[in-house]
């Protein structure tokens, strides 16, 4: 495959950044998107240049480390993470535009790598349960209704990649925050801190400078974990309940 890449290059957070164009003739339809980037980088290194910096870790779609905006869609728009995107989705001779996640709370560190610590700070604000440690509790000591555990697991699959923020026209982190809140708020172990968790995580989300949700659904369309908009409705419902209870 012959490809032309328009890649965002930015030395550091202070640099203004610009697009640079690279070409490769060594891409193969069976390669993953990142293997293609590896080949382009090898070529850049051979020519004595600075390789394109991009985040990646497991390369099997479970860690949430990778993620770039490909032709205007985070992760490329095939329901996977960037690492699980294959070159067969592209045409020979195609020009591919590659950009980092763009949101004020996600400053660019270098090229395609952004700092997603804002999402970690939302978790720190309440994305946990407080449990006394000690000997392991009895199995099935806490019964969880099957529909609740299924729903909780559907939200728990969020890998925190940040594609929802990148895709949102408002740079909102609602789908991420909602998935984390809904996951814990559905389970019995999450009940004691249910409303303080909701209020604190929403407050942190706003403090980080993420925009508001206008329900376009772009987030769920690119989510590699396929978390749906019902998570956001649950978050809204629990924040309203927290307000009525005087917690928020």
């Amino acid at each position, binding site marked *: 495959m012959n490809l032309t890449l328009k890649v965002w290059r930015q030395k550091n957070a202070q640099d203004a950044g610009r697009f640079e164009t690279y070409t490769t003739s060594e891409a193969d339809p069976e390669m993953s998107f990142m293997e293609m980037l590896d080949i382009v980088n090898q070529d850049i290194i051979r020519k004595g240049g600075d390789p394109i910096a991009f985040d990646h870790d497991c390369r099997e779609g479970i860690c949430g480390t990778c993620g770039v905006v490909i032709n205007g869609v985070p992760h490329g728009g095939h329901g996977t993470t960037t690492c699980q995107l294959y070159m067969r989705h592209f045409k020979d001779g195609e020009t591919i535009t590659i950009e980092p996640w763009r949101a004020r709370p996600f400053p660019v560190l270098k090229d395609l790598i952004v700092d997603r610590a804002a999402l970690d700070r939302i978790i720190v604000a309440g994305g946990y349960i407080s449990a006394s440690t000690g000997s392991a509790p009895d199995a099935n000591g806490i019964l969880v209704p099957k529909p609740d555990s299924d729903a909780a697991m559907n939200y728990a699959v969020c890998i925190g990649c940040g594609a929802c923020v990148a895709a949102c026209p*408002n740079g909102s982190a609602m789908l991420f925050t909602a998935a984390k809140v809904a996951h814990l708020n559905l389970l019995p172990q999450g009940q004691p801190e249910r409303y303080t968790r909701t209020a604190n995580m929403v407050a942190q989300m706003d403090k980080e400078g993420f*925009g508001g949700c206008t329900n376009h659904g772009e987030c769920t369309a690119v989510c590699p974990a396929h978390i749906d908009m019902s998570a956001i409705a649950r978050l*809204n419902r629990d924040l309203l309940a927290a307000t009525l209870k005087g917690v*928020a």
Partner: protein
Amino acid sequence: MAVVALYRSTIGKKVIMAVTGFIWVGYVVLHMFGNLKYFVGATSINGWAEFLRTFGQDILGYSGFLWVVRLVLVSAVLLHILMAYQLTQLDWASRPVRYSGRNYLSATFSSRTMRWGGVFILLFLVYHILHMTVGNIHPNYEELKPYHNLVVAFRDPIQVVFYVAAMIVLGLHLYHGVWSMLQTLGVNSFPRNATLHRVAQAIAILVPLGFISLPLAILLGIGVRP
């Protein structure tokens, strides 16, 4: 305290937008219902105008109820605009560097025109009130004679075209707005989602159709009695 905290959060601002939006959805449905009385005849629609002023007059006085409704509507629309403005500022601030090109997957024309569509609806609203309520830009306005005022106003095809365009924009605003309102108020859930979308679709299609039927009928001379 809790209410203040809710107002400060982006979700709280959206709740205010949803509640004020709900008030206006209820209002436009009732307004359309009143308008359709045109098809029953002059006595019916003129009687409706009179009824709105005499309703509850034993307690609130003549037109008292109408002024309460107007006060609620004006407060709701002002809050709706203020929240939209504040949220838009926050949303735009969250993406200082734009993408070189966006490829939308699920955002609709309706969802993407909420802001400018809203501005257009506001301008139409001001025009519409001057036209049909105050009557100072109406060619021959007569107080409490809606049948006469409508027939005179909508003989002009330019007025009809402008009105139809405004109703299409209203329909687009309602299509995303009604579903969005239900989502913000936490009514939505995975199994309910499809039904709520259909509710929004029904309101977004039926309300503008009901409104548009009137000027079109007048322009075509249907139901007009001299």
